[in-house]
């Protein structure tokens, strides 16, 4: 667990928020975890659907950062299932593919982030949806 930098004004009340990061690539989950930990969030990672469901049930994250794997539609299926089960859980989708954002929002996504993304954009999105 990392403590948040006191200079960062926005890492105050939300520092204890737990974020689940899901990507099949370890290198991706690794660096996102580092960034989020630096910001004072609690981070858990998962690399497949099974893991994801299990962690959500146990860890009860406040926000889900989910990679949609293309060309498989499984990512979408997972999204759909999760949204039905946890309608209040904000889900930010990430993808290297260019996808129809409308479709994703309908499926239950809260926001979409195209890979490669700017770190500040990521943090801004997380902050926005956690406070919402």
């Amino acid at each position, binding site marked *: 667990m990392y403590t948040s930098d006191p200079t960062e004004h926005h890492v105050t009340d939300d520092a204890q928020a737990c974020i689940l990061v899901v990507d099949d690539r370890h290198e991706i989950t690794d660096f996102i975890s580092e960034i989020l930990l630096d910001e004072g969030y609690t981070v858990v990672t998962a690399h497949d659907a099974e893991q994801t469901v299990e962690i959500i049930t146990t860890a009860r994250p406040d926000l889900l950062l989910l990679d949609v794997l293309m060309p498989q539609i499984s990512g979408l299926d997972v999204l759909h299932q999760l949204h039905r089960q946890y309608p209040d859980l904000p889900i930010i989708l990430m993808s*290297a593919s260019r996808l129809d954002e409308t479709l994703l929002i309908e499926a239950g996504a809260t926001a979409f982030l195209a*890979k490669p993304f*700017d*770190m500040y954009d990521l943090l801004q999105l997380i902050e926005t949806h956690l406070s919402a």
Partner: protein
Amino acid sequence: MHVDDSQRAVAIDVAALRQPAHANLLVVGIGAAEGGMDAVQRLLHAMPADTGLAFVLVYDARSRHDGALAAALVEHTSMPVVEVTEPIALRPNQEYVAAPGLDLRVADGTLLVHEHQPHPQLSMVVDWFFRSLSEAYGRRAIGIILSGQTRDGTLGAQAIKERGGMMMVQEPETARAHTMPQSVVATGFADYIVPVEEMPDYLQTYVRQPYIVDGHTATLHDSANPTLAAILRVLRGHSNHDFRNYKPSTLVRRIQRRMSLRSIEHPEEYLALLLQNEQELTHLYYDLLIGVTRFFRDPEAFRSLDDLALNDLIAAHPPDMPLRVWVAGCATGEEAYSLAMLLFERCAAAHKHLHLQVFASDINETALTFARQGLYPENIALDVSPRRLERFFIRTDAGYQVTKELRDAVVFAAQDLTSDPPFSRLDLISCRNLLIYLTPAVQQRVIALFHFALNADGILLLGNAETIGSQSSLFASISSKWRIYRRLGEGKRDVASLFHRSGAERTQAPDSPTSAVAPARSTPATLVQKLLLEQFTPTAVLINHQYECLYIHNPNPFYLTVPGGEPTQNLIALVHQELRPLLQMAVVRAIHEQQQAVISGHVASSDGLRDIIITAMPINAALAGDAVLVTFTTQVGAINEAVQAAAPPDVMVLVHQLERELSNTRATLQGTIQAGEAANEKLTAANEEVMSMNEEFQVANEELETSQEELQALNEELIVINTQLNDKVAELEVIGNDLNNLLMSTNIATLFLDLNLCIKRFTPATTQLFNLIPSDVGRPISDIAKKFSDGGMLHKAQQVLESLQPSLQEVQVPPDRWYLERIVPYRTSDNRIEGVVITFSDMSEIKHINQALRLSEVRFQTALEHAPITVFNQNQDLLFTWIYNPFPGTTTDQILGRHDREVFIVPQEADHLIALKQRVLTTGEGVHDQITLTFDDQACFYDITIEPLREVDGTVSGITAATIDLTDLKRIQQEVAEALSNEQAARQDAEKATHLRDMFLSIASHELKTPLTTLLGTAQLLQRRASRGDIDPERDSKTLQMIIHQTDRMSRLIALLLDVSQIDTGQLIIIQKRVQLEAFVRRIADEFSASTPTRTINLERVEPDLVVLGDELRLEQVVYNLLQNAVRYSRPDTAIDISITQRDIEACISVHDFGIGMSLEAQQHIFERFYRARNANKINVSGMGIGLYVAQEIIAMHHGTIEVSSEEGVGSTFTICLPLLLENH
């Protein structure tokens, strides 16, 4: 305007018409039909307005211009024209016409109207009117017949003439349609035959005659009139017919009528005319004879005869005897034919076949000629029922012709009832309306004659006004109203008595009615007569001029003794010797002076001198010939007184005187004797002459007898020949009928021409080509208008006559009828040429069909000629009978008559075809199939349709088939199909390629973006930490290591993509060097283990010293790829085995994992570009699907192979085989 005129005329006259009828009015009936309007107008135009006659125009309804008739006449006559719409009285100087739709009759001075009832075939308005006119007006009726095409009016004219009226007929030559006037003229009923313009003059002259005006018979009123007697004598001289037997009243009426027609008032003038003018004599003769009759005249009489007499007569008649009927005074034959028809019908009804003989007699030869023709005008339909017309008449253009059957039953003969011998053994006699013309005495004789002529119970039919008179003992009445009688008595009268007496009656007025001769019977009166005759009459001898005794009455031995010697009849020999001179003197004087001669003489006898008186009386009796009746008487007392009175006183003087007297007497006697001797000599000479003549006659007689025998033999022969001829005639008649029917039924126009090309005969169909009418027979054909362009028919006919070669040509009757004209010589049975026969067969249908056929044929030929279609027929044995467009490489000649096996070389093809055709032949149902036939080693495809060919009765007689060559079509179809499939494959390939490329791009983008994301994120993390002064060397080094790793990964991905690009563009270059495989593999394994420390790499089997030629970098890339795959698709806890083996001349490197494996389908495609196995995706292992593709390409460039063997869930083995480098070489 016209209508107004006629209406005004009607209006004026209707008022006047209520007046009573005029007495003694003469009414002129004018009959006209087609073409008659002009004649009527001209007639009325020429007719003065004040003739005093009433004119009634009867215009045949067929040609009537409805409503305009009266109007059409108004302009042409100064008389008022009355259109009759209701009964009105006739008045003089008026012209009457019927209103449209009405027919006229006249009765009692009144015109009656009847609704016109058109008869489908007949016009008879004129006949009807004339008949009513004649009945109403008798001799004051005048008929005028004008132009018309029918024979209407003929029967009416007959009626008018019968009642003494006058008939005037338009000269047929001047009439537009001459049939109507011609028909009346032909019957001989026309009194005047003149042009229309002359009619008024004749008419006016005629009606001015006193007899016509008031029936005044000026001077001829009884038979005693010498002029009448003279006229009858002249007639007898002319015609040998004695009209004194006729009633004078009839004779006078008819003579007066003739006189009126001739405008003669005094009988003497007329007598003078008769003596000069034979024609008038003939007219008078026929007018006197006029016997007008009609078919079934007095139908009631016929019905009564039928009902009351005929059935019994026929039933009782012996079947083998002819039924004999005599119609006396038959005139123009109608009565005879009527009776014959009735008898035919009765016989048929009674189912009794009797031979019917009707003898019809008349003295009028003209009438008989007409009767013998048996041709009557159409209007006899008024009197003859349609059924009888149908049964007994044949309708011809000229009228109704009696059938042969009817005609044969009736024999017409000229016979004078009053003088000629009658027919005999008759069953029925009809003598109607003849007796009324005869004097009562002659009537009685004729009745007796009929009694003689009839068989027992024979039937006699007399006219309405005739009776059997006082001779009721001869006939019993069957119907007194209709004068039907049955003969009474069995025996026959002595016919001679009828006729010898009749001879006397011809010259003397009859003194008493004839009575039957009573048979001689012995009554007291006759006894007394006989005794008185014997006692008081003198001896009388009837001798002929040769003194031969014919009869001796009361012979007295004093006068007559029989001398010795040969018996003699000579009175001179028989008479007393002293009486002989006296007898001779008396006889000679009587013969000489033709009067009674009385000679007296003295004969000494035993009782003194007897004074004998001999009387000779010449007798010229037909019975006795020239005879002399000689009587002998004695006057005893008278002698003495005479002697005493004459005796002188002086005896001597007396003696001298006596002696002188004696001497004188002797001298006289001597002279007489000499005269007698001279006469005797003459007589002897004459006798000798007679004897010799007699001899000659005897010889002649013998000759005649011989001749007669010969004649009899000849007659027998003739009878035989006649029988044969009769048979032949019957046969010919049948043939004639057959031929006629044939000619009629074939509807072939046929024309028979004689040598001069004049028409001999033609069939009805000929009128389609020529304007022919029946009367054209005999005219040259060149005079007849043709309806077709000639084409030199006459010339051809002439040629045929010369060459005897038939001629044929087609002729066209515009617009579109075609005939085949055939001219052949007319050959008689004895092979003479008597003309030509021209037939015209109607071939329009054929011509049209031919044209249509030819057109159709041309159409089909043109269509088929350039089409790959073959049509053919085969018979039941499948031999070709017809073919169109023969198969390629064959000709029609090669195919016709051949069998399928001979035409189609390949046996299987022929068999298939034969099977198809046999099926059609057996089932009778068509088939449709596609077959292959080989011609000239080239297989051709055909579509074939086979249908059965059927006979008229439906049996299958063969097949008809059509084939269409589909070879080209099939080839093109195949090409198209191939092209299509190629194109589809290409498109599928292209689609697949596109799909793979899209996948690749997506994956490549994803694969490339992942390191980019990591690089960007990590770099930003470092930057942010650095800016915060948060530096941890160990931690940051690890982070930087990740950046390097990601960069390396990206560069490999890019290199791989570059390889693909190079492979695609052929720019991938292999630099081959010697590669020692064991060392090569061990190095890679070591390096891989170092970079992937979590996985165990086992070098299982290694064949040492295997060397290949290859690009080491590229081969390393391949093996590295295989190892990465093995790691990626297997669990981390499993090992990866590598082996190096030799297979023949190849060295193989295998990489084996215990991973997820792959399906067989995946194994087949695993080396294809962008392909990713399905289960590879499932486990979320990323990859672009180009690694194995590049590996395969690289190995292929090394002339090696790469293969995979795998099982899902077990593991996969990839093996690379490369050619061994054989270092010895």
